[in-house]
């Protein structure tokens, strides 16, 4: 396939040298179907080895490589250049998180918030010898929510998080949904108590940025709405 010239601006930040982030420009030839990750690799391997970013699986399943390209959160590894009509790319780290270096952001809070909602089955019933019984319909209640790869694209795109970094965020709330609506779980009350909070579910104003950003096309907003109703039912 034919190559094309593209110009790229990357927000660079090296804590050992810079006071604040700055833009650097690069020009290169890329194939039509190169992904953003291919381009970052190309830059780092052949132009500037000091560029840092996260990546691992490069098949959209590990969730390492979420970044902001032309104003929108995407997975670098699954987003081809041709998705952006302009031949100009503006690449930044995820908004709303602190920058460690270049495109690498601090995900500790993100994972800490996940931990907060007790992301594991809480069992009060006795455990059977074989599996717990669960019907295909009951499974399908949670099958979409378990697609989440914890990439952080959603949480980072949410305007509620930008103004309040303490907001639990869509990813951990989705995880709460996944357990509260799992028929095997007995911990709904505990979890509802955690998310029914100023920094919890009530910071969601159905803005839908999360859903637009989610690389797995999870209808996050729907699950958060279901959660809200559930919380209301349980606390009033």
């Amino acid at each position, binding site marked *: 396939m034919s190559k094309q010239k593209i110009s790229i601006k990357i927000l660079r930040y090296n804590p*050992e040298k810079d006071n604040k982030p700055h833009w650097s420009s690069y020009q290169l030839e890329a194939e039509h179907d190169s992904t953003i990750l291919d381009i970052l690799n190309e830059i780092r391997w*052949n132009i500037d*080895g000091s560029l840092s970013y996260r990546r691992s699986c490069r098949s959209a399943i590990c969730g*390492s490589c979420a970044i902001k390209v032309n104003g929108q959160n995407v997975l670098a590894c699954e987003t081809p250049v041709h998705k952006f009509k302009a031949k100009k790319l503006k690449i930044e780290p995820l908004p709303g998180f602190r920058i*460690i270096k270049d495109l690498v952001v601090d995900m500790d809070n993100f994972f800490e918030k996940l931990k907060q909602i007790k992301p594991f089955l809480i069992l009060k019933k006795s455990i059977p010898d074989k599996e*717990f019984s669960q019907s295909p319909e009951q499974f399908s209640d949670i099958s979409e929510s378990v697609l989440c790869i914890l990439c952080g694209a959603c949480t980072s795109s949410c305007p509620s998080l930008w103004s309040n970094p303490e907001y639990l965020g869509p990813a951990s709330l989705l995880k709460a949904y996944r357990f509260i609506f799992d028929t095997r779980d007995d911990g709904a009350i505990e979890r509802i108590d955690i998310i029914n909070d100023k920094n919890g579910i009530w910071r969601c104003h159905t803005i839908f940025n999360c859903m637009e950003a989610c690389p797995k096309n999870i209808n996050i907003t729907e699950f958060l709405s279901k959660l809200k109703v559930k919380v209301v039912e349980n606390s009033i």
Partner: protein
Amino acid sequence: MKIEEAKHYHRIDAVIVGAGLAGLRAALELAKNNQEVGVITKVYPTRSHSGAAQGGIAAALANVAEDSPELHMFDTIKGSDYLGDQDVIELFVNESIKTVYEFEHMGVPFSRTGDGKINQRPFGGHSSPRACFSADITGHVLLHTLYEQCLKYQVHFFNEFQVFSLLIKDNISRGVVAWDIRNGGLHIFHSKAVLLATGGYGRAFKISSNAFANTGDSLGLILENHLPLEDMEFVQFHPTGLYKHGILLSEAARGEGGYITNNEGERFMKHYAAEKMELAPRDVVSRAEQTEIIEGRGINGKACVHLDLRHLGHSKIMERLPQVRELALNYINTDCIKEPIPIQPTAHYSMGGIPANTKTEVIRNVNGEIIKGLYTAGEASCLSLHGANRLGTNSVQGAATFGRIAGESMSEFTKSGSYESLIPDPLDQAQKKISQLIDGTGKEKHAPIREELQENMTRYLGIFRNEKDMLIMKKKIKELQEKYRQVAIDDKGEVFNLDLIEAFELRNLLDFSEVLIEGALARRESRGAHYRTDFPKRDDEHWLKHTLSWKTETGVKLDHSKKVIIYWDRFPPQERKY
């Protein structure tokens, strides 16, 4: 360098290197046994490559059809082309049922049968539907559930720490030294027991389904400590890798009835496996594809053939193979409902690795003598469960089951064992590697070396091997290692220095590739994934044995006296036909 010069000194009963299924399962077991455990991983645990497993996890639950552990055992042995150790396989098939039920109780969302049981699907090489699955994201849900359980049991994580050296002396493991990727600096982890669970080594090849992180780090470190690796020559190639990217399209695409065609639109598998056609085992299909490509029947003369799903129709594709469609759409802008997908064989799974016994203790010679306090599990290990060729869905099961077994043996050990003294100057080995790269004044860059390695490994040690090619590669690798000594990196900083990490990983790639090549050269037969055009037959008389390989000052040392454990009365070797 002295201990005091380390950024941090940690003293932890058990240290787990790697947070894939194997590492996490072991950590969980230790934590449940109230042992102090720290998990060191170079990527966040949920980013481990175990999450990429799609198809399922094997266990003879017999939920949808007749099945038994005995049958599972037979399939695995036959799949391994009789190189699998049968005592290991027996333990594996029996324990795997427990492993799956445990997973279910932890909350893994398995797909269900109509009567509420875990659903199972058929998989290549298994004679009964045995793969428990969750849609096409089985590995992903297993990995996430395990991580969440570890959070529950307060396992301590050292995320984005990369192990740079092992502290082994007098055949006793005393801990590891790891580089803090985020902040820089070396940390000493002084421990009673260490588990190496760093996953596969598919990144040595250009076309690979493996993650960037699958660089076989611990294999490099094992070699560096004058310890052996086992059966490194066996690398599985998967027939349906996305052309040029190598990204895996699930085997389900063929299971659901997909065709594989050449440039004439012919279903060429009829010339290679007339009965099973596209559903023949992976090694057979991969070889067929490669033959077509070599003989000029690739699509438009390129190194690919077609995976044609069009006849399945819109609704079946959307319902059963959404991920396959999405991957092809995203990566090569091809809609499999309307067009065939270009595919090529891709390096997928590494059967070889760090040799260990059934208690997952690392062994150091053919007599099975162990390194005290050192354990291994998962794809990094070679127990040898998969022999010369592993069956689909057996590897996540292997990682999980032997992860648990590792956790059990380790906690037994840490409960009674005590801390051995550290070696003097524990940081030296790691520091030397770093200084060489950061202070180096050489002119070489690591990226071109890696590219050359991968390209040539795919070319000369790919699906078809022969002496001439491998000798070329043997020479090549020496050159590359020479070049590596001249590598200097651009990034001299401490914080998230990806340049340093990749350069370090390249060192491991080069080291284990060298023993891989020697192992493949020496094995003058074709067995499982190792196919030699100059020795196309399996040779049980001479080669029913494992390869142990060491890297020494003078080159690679091989030892073939490790016998395969076979229950001759129950599962004697027979021809592998499908």
